[in-house]
């Protein structure tokens, strides 16, 4: 029996969510322990016997049996999910209620509940992302730290802070309350957006790690689009999903065959994933309802301009510039201003682009961002100022976040030297 890719990780998220529905959010760590134990048993048994016909069901049954033992033993010492507590305390109702809560149909909603629970507004966005990766995607602290090029201690701190805050709320988020749902949805969207961006623009040098983060964000946004959400996703969720698809279509060309970054301008457009692009456009169409114009709408529209253009020269840069301007008015940020300036350079020439960059109000915030220096380098190079360009690339090399970026800027710097 061959296992589906990442089956263990994904089942870990499902099982932890489902068990938390029974145990209560304050017993999240207990749910994670029960799941880990079921997995350890699977490792020992499947190693020699081979995996069973239905691995996911085997894992869930193993965890469920363990949960029954544990609840019978600890029912006086612990309180479980408050809304079903009395049924869990009673031997005659314990088994039927747990069976009901852990039925496959119920679990789909549990993942959604958990996703919303992880995004409490009183905790920082970076905590939401770390919690989602740990609880719903089955990544360990070490794996998250390595994907984010961060220290294990820092990630550990983030996650334990998040779990403490979750524990205080005891019950999973109620996704059937429409008012609460809409209010929390923005935080969930933002967390998935940040997760995707970490994969797309992140600091990890490993292409596979980054692709995996993007895929996880796309898997979770699909849950937001699914029936668990009440069947009518918000237009901004469609826009977010569209944006992810359009970007993901370019992921494999972003990092070339040698593991090096390739600029949008040099990408082999024939290698972009047509299926993902088509799905991105379909989702973008679905997002065009109602009065809401979210930043995801605009970002997706920008991505669609690139996806539509057969070459860099045939890109509608004027449309892209006005979309960046719309984005600036929704969410002012020097990075967006930088992207706008680059688009202006494409339309009106490098000198105009440099002027625009120099006019960015908070541009000192960009000094730690290597692609800022690199953008200046590109434009100076196109303008014929090789020496100035070289200095900018040298600056970018000095603050590059990994070997892949360093190599990329180094290649650009060396191209300044050609006669």
């Amino acid at each position, binding site marked *: 029996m061959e*296992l589906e890719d990442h089956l*263990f990780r994904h089942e870990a998220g499902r099982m932890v969510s489902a068990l938390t529905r029974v145990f209560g959010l304050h017993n999240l760590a207990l749910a994670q322990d029960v799941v880990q134990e079921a997995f*350890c048993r699977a*490792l020992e048994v*499947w*190693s*020699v016997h*081979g995996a069973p016909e239905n691995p996911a069901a085997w894992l869930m049954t193993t965890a469920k049996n363990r949960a029954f033992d544990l609840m019978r033993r600890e029912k006086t010492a612990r309180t479980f999910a408050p809304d079903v507590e009395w049924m869990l305390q009673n031997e005659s109702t314990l088994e039927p209620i747990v069976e009901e809560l852990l039925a496959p149909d119920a679990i789909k909603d549990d993942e959604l509940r958990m996703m919303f629970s992880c995004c409490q507004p009183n905790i920082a966005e970076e905590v939401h992302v770390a919690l989602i990766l740990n609880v719903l995607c089955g990544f360990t602290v*070490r794996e998250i730290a390595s994907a984010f090029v961060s220290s294990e201690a820092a990630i550990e701190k983030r996650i334990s802070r998040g779990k403490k805050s979750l524990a205080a709320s005891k019950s999973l988020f109620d996704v059937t309350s429409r008012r609460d749902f809409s209010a929390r949805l923005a935080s969930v969207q933002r967390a998935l957006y940040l997760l995707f961006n970490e994969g797309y623009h992140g600091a990890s040098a490993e292409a596979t790690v980054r692709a995996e983060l993007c895929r996880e964000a796309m898997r979770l946004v699909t849950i937001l689009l699914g029936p668990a959400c009440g069947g009518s996703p918000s237009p901004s969720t469609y826009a977010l999903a569209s944006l992810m698809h359009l970007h993901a279509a370019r992921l494999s060309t972003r990092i070339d065959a040698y593991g090096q970054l390739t600029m949008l301008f040099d990408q082999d457009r024939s290698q972009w994933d047509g299926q993902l692009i088509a799905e991105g456009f379909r989702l973008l169409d679905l997002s065009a309802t109602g009065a809401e114009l979210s930043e995801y709408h605009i970002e997706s529209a920008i991505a669609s301009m690139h996806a539509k253009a057969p070459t860099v020269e045939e890109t509608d840069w004027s449309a892209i510039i006005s979309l960046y301007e719309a984005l600036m008015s929704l969410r002012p940020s020097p990075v967006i201003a930088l992207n706008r300036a680059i688009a202006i350079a494409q339309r009106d020439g490098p000198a105009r682009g440099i002027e625009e960059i120099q006019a960015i109000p908070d541009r000192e915030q960009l000094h730690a961002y290597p692609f800022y220096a690199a953008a200046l380098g590109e434009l100076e190079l196109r303008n014929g100022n090789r020496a100035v360009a070289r200095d900018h690339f040298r600056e970018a090399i000095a603050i590059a976040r990994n070997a892949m970026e360093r190599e990329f800027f180094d290649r650009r710097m060396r191209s300044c030297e050609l006669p």
Partner: protein
Amino acid sequence: MSDYMLLFRGRNRSLSPEQMQRSIEKWRGWFDELRRSGHLKDRGHPLQDSRKVVTGRQRTVTDGPFVEVKDLINGYTVVTATDLTQAVDLARGCPMLDIEGSVEVRQIEDGSP
């Protein structure tokens, strides 16, 4: 050709879900290779932890002798090999070794004089 029993010891409970899945996939590959090369005699079984030891004329039942978790046998497989050296070479590929376990190789006595 003789038969050799491979006894698996060790356990690593701190693996991540992804690492566990990769380990299980490696086991599958290892067994496939043993089967393909004609060395797999009996895939064997994993063993549970629960155990009792019956000793002596008094048939005393105990939980011990206690051994550390890393010394506990938790599965076995039987392979066919020309000699101990070849059997050891087969054991070298066992994924148990990648997760801090060990494999003991014992020739099965066939009783021939």
